[in-house]
């Protein structure tokens, strides 16, 4: 068996750096697609849902304003829905698991039934005075650079 690991240059080499750069650019492109809000501030049912999930939330949790809305991205990567969530105005990236639960970039290892619960759990991890970093790199979802696109892609909720 051939082991190339020893002979292959490490993370800082151009090929890997280019791959990272591509992913970062893809995320910026995804942000630039300007998702269209489909939800008002008043919580209502998600389109096409079976009534279990809200399509928006807006509340104060442990002194933090958490807001979320189910959005429908437009443009070439349209399709499916995604949650756009902020904590005190700073974006929080949510990711969906194939069992339909949600994770956040702050808490990667616990998953929650709803995006609201995942957002509250992220707040639980924030210390006093700590904020989410703006433009914190999100999970860039593969070669298409799609972000937290859970709804229609292999999810067996």
């Amino acid at each position, binding site marked *: 068996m051939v082991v190339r690991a020893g002979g292959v240059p490490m993370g800082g080499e151009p090929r890997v750096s280019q791959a990272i750069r591509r992913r970062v650019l893809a995320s910026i492109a995804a942000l630039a697609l300007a998702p269209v809000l489909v939800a008002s501030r008043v919580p209502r049912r998600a389109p096409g849902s079976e009534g279990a999930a809200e399509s928006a939330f807006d509340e104060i949790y442990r002194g933090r304003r958490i807001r979320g809305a189910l959005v429908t991205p437009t443009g070439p990567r349209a399709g499916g829905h995604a949650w756009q969530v902020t904590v005190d105005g700073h974006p929080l990236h949510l990711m969906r698991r194939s069992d*339909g639960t949600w994770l956040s970039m702050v808490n990667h290892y616990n*998953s929650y039934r709803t995006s609201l619960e995942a957002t509250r759990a992220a707040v639980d991890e924030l210390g006093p005075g700590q904020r989410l970093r703006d433009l914190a790199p999100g999970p860039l979802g593969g070669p298409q650079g799609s972000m937290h696109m859970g709804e229609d892609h*292999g999810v067996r909720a």
Partner: protein
Amino acid sequence: MAYVRKDVSRLTPDERRRFVNALLRIKWRGEYDEFVRIHIAYYTSDGERGLRSAHMGPSFLPWHRRFLLDLERALQRVDESVTVPYWDWTRDRSTTSVPWTDDLLGGNGRPFDRQVVTGPFAYVQGYWPIREGIIDALFLTRDLGRAHDPIELPTEEELETALADPVYDTEPWDSTCEEGFRNKLEGWGTGEDSAALHNHNLVHRWVGGAMVGGASVNDPVFWLHHAFVDLQWTRWQQRHRNGAPHYLPAYPPGPRSGQRGRIVARHEPMPPWGVSPDEMEDVSGIYRYA
């Protein structure tokens, strides 16, 4: 001649010092933060589109094996005697045992803001600013054992449930697999909170702070933890040598599978390096565990 990765509890004072100094050195050179960025960039969840090379898929183990080798190469360019030690969390289970000593990784975060204030990685020392974090704090954070709702590290028995499974991984090759060595070790379960966390995932949660987020690489315990996870793969291969000790799937999922193009089969290139999982299966020519 293969080098040796040791149990962190058995490092000599000199080995501890050299390991810590090499980490601080590559941090200062800016190399370390590249590892943080790579880990964030390749975290694709299985309810999303895209190829999952690092987590929630069969290549979880070879991806992190290769990732550790890259870190080890960087450390060895600074000090060729250094290898990545492993943290046996089935034995060193307290918040004051190794590796949480002042001559290794420092201790728990303080209750107020979870800031690590002891050891070489404390912000006040000036060597370990967090530049690639999810939150805006510049200091490393930990919450060992999760103070507000305490949890325990995985036990030897729990680790054994993973090692005893003779099959490497099973369909649907994601975080919902209830069978297979890979997910039993990676540790995705179902249910509420800590009941759904096992082995690898539970350790991330137990350390808390930076280790529970996407930028977990910011805490150098990431490497000691993953070296121990990597050791389990080696142990599993040795134990099931006469069974089916190979990485699965052997071939990419078929055209009608929802997992087609989303996982790495045994001979497929694994991003970002392009090595295949089978090339990472036998590393006995590079290193061994003691």
